[in-house]
């Protein structure tokens, strides 16, 4: 029971962090048709910016400054590079973001070094918030949950209550029609790209010290966020939210449930020994397979339901 509750909370925190990354990506992907491989790089840059800024003016200022820096960078990328590459077609656009992610990773290595940087949780939050069945719930996790819920509410209000939000929502499903109605679609693209970068940067600021701030953090997070976006479905923020939570919970529970296929077979009365065919696959414990699960889910969903959970359009 205690394992269940603690894992549920941890999975929720991780899922909300994923949603912060994936919501921006899904907006960009749905509107512009570009699968932005550099999105996770913005998450990494957010963490590194926050590390550098927090050493000068403290964590709370970094919480605001670092995402804004990411947003400015995102706007510049969209206005001066992506729009140009757009003429060369979708594949060129996608490859451009792949190259960009690669260069950002190398540039980060050059600017901050190859090793993880000591970006730490602020001392105020570095304590236990409450105890559940003898295990601590860390205050910083509560803070992360708070920030991500606030962000979720903010996006919701922005998209449903403001004019620009309605234009964005319309452009999600019918970009050509929105352009035909006289809205400046390129500017909406820039805003969405910058906004997505802000969200990714914010996720980096609060996730960088919770996880590790290192040059490979973009490469480890990137594919998982893709999985979330594809799983949730194109053009659906709600699907993206559900997919984030599922992914967060799956990854957290996969670590704590120590069973293998052999254990299940043993329940059915079949004993697996070292001579059984595929014994290695059958005895592999779930925590070790955990890293595989997102990709298995990705392949399965693309095969069975290519539009994802709640997608409205084909990928």
């Amino acid at each position: 029971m205690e394992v269940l509750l603690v894992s549920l909370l941890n999975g929720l925190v991780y899922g909300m962090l994923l949603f912060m990354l994936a919501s921006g990506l899904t907006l960009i992907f749905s509107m512009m048709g570009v699968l932005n491989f550099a999105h996770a790089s913005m998450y990494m840059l957010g963490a590194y910016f926050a590390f550098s800024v927090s050493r000068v003016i403290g964590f709370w200022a970094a919480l605001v400054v670092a995402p804004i820096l990411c947003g400015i960078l995102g706007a510049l990328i969209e206005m001066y590079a992506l729009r140009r590459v757009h003429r060369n077609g979708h594949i060129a656009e996608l490859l451009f973001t792949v190259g960009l992610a690669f260069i950002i990773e190398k540039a980060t290595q050059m600017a901050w070094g190859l090793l993880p940087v000591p970006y730490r949780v602020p001392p105020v939050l570095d304590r236990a918030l409450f105890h559940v069945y003898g295990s601590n719930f860390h205050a910083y996790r509560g803070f992360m949950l708070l920030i991500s819920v606030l962000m979720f509410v903010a996006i919701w209000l922005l998209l449903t209550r403001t004019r620009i939000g309605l234009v964005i929502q319309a452009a999600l499903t019918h970009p050509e029609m929105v352009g035909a109605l006289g809205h400046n679609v390129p500017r909406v693209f820039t805003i969405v790209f910058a906004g997505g970068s802000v969200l990714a940067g914010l996720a980096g600021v609060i996730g960088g010290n919770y996880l590790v701030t290192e040059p490979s953090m973009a490469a480890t997070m990137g594919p998982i966020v893709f999985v979330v976006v594809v799983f949730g479905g194109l053009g659906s923020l709600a699907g993206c939210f559900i997919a984030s939570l599922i992914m967060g919970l799956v990854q957290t529970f996969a670590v704590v449930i120590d069973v293998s296929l052999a254990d299940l077979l043993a329940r059915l009365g079949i004993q697996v020994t070292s001579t059984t065919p595929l014994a290695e696959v059958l005895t592999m414990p779930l925590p070790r397979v955990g890293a595989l699960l997102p990709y298995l889910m990705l392949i399965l969903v693309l095969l069975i339901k290519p539009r994802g959970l709640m997608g409205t359009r084909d990928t």
Partner: protein
Amino acid sequence: MSEGVARTAARPLAAGGAAGFLRRQWPWLAALVFALVVPWFSFDWSTGRHSGFIVSMLSQIGISIIFALSYNMLMGQAGLLSFGHAVFLGLGGYVTAHVVNATKGGAFPLPLELTPIAGALGGLAFAVVLGYFATKQRATAFAMITLGIGELITSCALMFQTFFGGEGGVSTNRMTGRSLFGVGYAAPIQVYYLIVAWTALSVVAMLLLTRTPLGRMANASRDNFERAQFVGYDPRMVRFFQFALSGAFAGIAGALYTLTYEIVTYDTVAGPMSANALLMTYIGGVGVFAGPVVGAVLIVLLQSWVSLLSNSWLVYAGVLFIMMVTFAPMGLTGLVMMHQPIWRAGRLGRLIGPYLRLLGPALLVLIGFVLAVELCSFLTIGAAQGKSFTLSRITIDPRGARPWLVAGLLLVGGGLWLRVAMRGFGAAWNAVTEEVKTVGTRA
């Protein structure tokens, strides 16, 4: 995109007899002769050995050529962007390693020269299984599935001991004592000639494949898959066959990789290897059959030489890639092909002047950029490794302001000059192409 392929395909190989064949295919023959002769330039007569560096680099070029061409069967010819092509190189390599080990154990008397067939069959088998799923989709969804497959197989390679050998990989010994020609394959140069033979075979096979109905239908379903459907072909089957064959050729590359290094680890199936195929193919050019060959040679040379000089060769490769995507989506060979009509019209001389005028500012920007990147890298990574930045015995201090100022000036000044020069070049280019067009219509 299809123009270059169509042009090579339109010429039958044998037409015009031996002289005609020689006249048309001379670049390929010249490349083959060059590949056969070049190790002997580095032959050290006093020790009776070839330079290990050169032979190993040439071997790598041969493997990369097959790999990049097999990747282009998907990307260039079928329009399928794959992020997991290394899976088939790696799996072909693992299969080969197991086959060679079985031969060594006496279970399986396969001559070493033919082990790439085992690699090809391994690549083919896995490409049939995985391709069955992947080719259900096209475009972005296909790219995502291949990304997933790549990550999946990489994780599996780290997890399972029996087939993949876990983190340590599978090591093997190529001196099985079984050979068609009685060669021992102790020296790398012997393996190199084996690689040359298999590369030549694979290149010819892949070139001929572009002229089969399958190759042409792959082009068709790339350009307009709905119309290809109306003609009566199932685009999914076209994708599937193309994917499977491409996997088989990648398997040959993997087999040669195994024979060269005598070990296969999870690196061969992992993302960076797939990215390498993409980099080589795209920089070389996807529209021309020989494009990936050019890309493979260039990238391996960069990898071998620039990585000796600089920590940050990957940055240069990445920036080159981004520049190609942004400004020359048809790659290096695409750029060369743009000059063909001008060359045919005999107007290429008119462009020499404008090109020379571009050289100065381009060089300034290049030097400024390299200086800036190196300064950055020496400030952090170099400092951590205890290296100092020396340029022909002058030590440059990356902490000082002066080198940064020089780099900034070169970048900004050269960049502005380059913009002006580019405008002049654009005008000259347009004038020449206009002229060529009028000549073409008059004739």
